[in-house]
């Protein structure tokens, strides 16, 4: 199909709204969460209207339907990332919980004091704090691949760190601040050569371009539905089957067991071993519908469109006196433009832009160490998705000129 962002916008009810009378919404905060197409909203609505029941074990019609929808969504998600089997797709609450699952289950079973985990300086707090906690609890060691002035990972330094024999390399596929798309395939290949496993934070990559877990040969991949047109409250941990099989359960409770005695239990098989308690069923259904929606449009089309919009945004932002952009050039960058405006705090920028319906985020975007590295307390961030248009970029730029006038 031919890609037409202006047409696609009709699929998203929220994009039709006005922020206040006469002021249409310009949503440039998809990196925080994406908007949802009607197909996803309807799938969840239909589920509650027609099929709602608790899953597994039930034998009545509704329970059968709900289970089929829940497991059907898992298959769609598996296909979306080219996982070898649906059982390797573990439902979690979000990317953060997926990373925590690895930190609690795999790491606590496999890491001891002194073992090295390599992270990067551009990580979101969700891929820092679980490892800080393990550092305090276990005495594991943490090292960080440095970020260069241009916002890229320093792979030469990475190769030196690998000589220290890490057990795990955990890194973001795409920075939520700099927009840097990291060379995941190469980072993983080098890690494996050094005998380390790999965890990729795919929160920003899986929604925006095709991610193939088998081509990457990644050991664990974490991502969230809500950043890829799906609902909040559900995410995924993908893992290689042999690793997941060997890992101890994460949370204990119903559904994750094969057999429970008063003083013991036997864990269930994959994927249920890691899914204790009644899960987010409607959200899984919505997640499956989101994968259908994105697949129908084509991830390559989405990536190409975002590239075009981002290139245009960088050009337009660069021409504004006082604007400083962070991160690499368009060649290595996804749909994120983080910037500062001289003399104006990012909160004030965001607030004045909101006046014209332009929604951007201001703050450290859960990447405080990265901001410290660049010696700035905060940035304003505009981010783009399949429904973003050049017209919206123009309205952002007009808004920034207005901010300059206020503070001029």
């Amino acid at each position, binding site marked *: 199909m031919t890609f037409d962002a202006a047409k696609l916008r009709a699929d998203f009810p929220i994009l039709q709204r006005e922020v206040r009378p006469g002021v249409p919404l310009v949503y440039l905060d998809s990196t925080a969460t994406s908007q949802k197409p009607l197909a996803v909203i309807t799938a969840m609505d239909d589920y509650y209207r027609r099929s709602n029941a608790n899953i597994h074990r039930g034998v009545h019609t509704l329970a059968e339907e709900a289970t089929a929808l829940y497991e059907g969504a898992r298959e769609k998600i598996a296909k979306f990332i080219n996982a070898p089997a649906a059982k390797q797709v573990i439902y979690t609450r979000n990317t953060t919980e997926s990373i925590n699952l690895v930190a609690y289950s795999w790491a606590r079973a496999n890491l001891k004091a002194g073992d090295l985990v390599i992270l990067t300086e551009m990580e979101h707090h969700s891929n820092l704090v679980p490892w800080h906690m393990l550092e305090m609890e276990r005495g594991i060691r943490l090292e960080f691949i440095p970020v260069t002035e241009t916002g890229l990972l320093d792979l030469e330094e990475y190769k030196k760190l690998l000589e220290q024999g890490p057990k795990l390399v955990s890194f973001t596929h795409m920075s939520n601040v700099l927009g840097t798309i990291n060379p995941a395939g190469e980072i993983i290949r080098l890690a494996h050569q050094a005998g380390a496993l790999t965890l990729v934070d795919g929160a920003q990559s899986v929604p925006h371009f095709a991610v193939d877990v088998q081509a990457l040969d990644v050991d664990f991949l974490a991502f969230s539905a809500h950043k890829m047109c799906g609902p909040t409250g559900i995410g995924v941990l993908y893992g290689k089957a042999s690793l997941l099989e060997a890992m101890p359960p994460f949370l204990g409770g119903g559904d994750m067991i094969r057999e429970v005695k008063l003083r013991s239990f036997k864990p269930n098989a994959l994927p249920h071993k890691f899914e204790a308690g009644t899960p987010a069923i409607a959200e899984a259904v919505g997640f499956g519908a989101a994968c259908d929606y994105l697949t129908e449009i084509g991830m390559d089309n989405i990536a190409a469109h975002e590239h075009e919009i981002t290139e245009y945004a960088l050009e337009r932002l660069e021409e504004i006196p006082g604007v400083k952009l962070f991160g690499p050039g368009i060649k290595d960058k996804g749909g994120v433009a983080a910037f500062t405006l001289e003399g104006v705090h*990012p909160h*004030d920028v965001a607030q004045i832009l909101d006046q014209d319906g332009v929604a951007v985020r201001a703050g450290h975007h859960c990447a405080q160490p990265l901001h410290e590295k660049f010696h700035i307390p905060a940035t304003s961030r505009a981010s783009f998705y399949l429904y973003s248009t050049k017209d919206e970029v123009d309205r952002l730029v007009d808004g920034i000129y207005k901010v300059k006038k206020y*503070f001029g």
Partner: protein
Amino acid sequence: MDDLYREVIIEHYKNPGYRGYLDPHDYAFADSNPLCGDHIEITLRVDGENKISEAAFQGHGCAISQASADLLLESIIGKPLEEVRHLNKDDVLDLLGLDLGPVRLKCALLSLKVLKAGVYGLGEAPDSLVE
């Protein structure tokens, strides 16, 4: 909204009257807003009758946080310490002449929190100080 960036706020942000650091001082306190990284440090001097004789703030943050610090310090010069201890949220909002949403309220109230923690001699600045 236009109200939010009224001239008085932009003016106090760009040309604050009370920016600085008093050394020596009788009271001092500093705190940050972890959400947005706003930071404010306030130093005070009192006279023989325990009235505020001099006040200064330093730090960084958005226009609302910095302007409210400047307006707040301007308002307490000559006031008894005891009165400063009883300032609350509404006093700051009156100074700003604004009605703020929950996110920006934190920006506006940071200076009051810092001020009260300082004059109460507390080791920390809990949100309850400005509620």
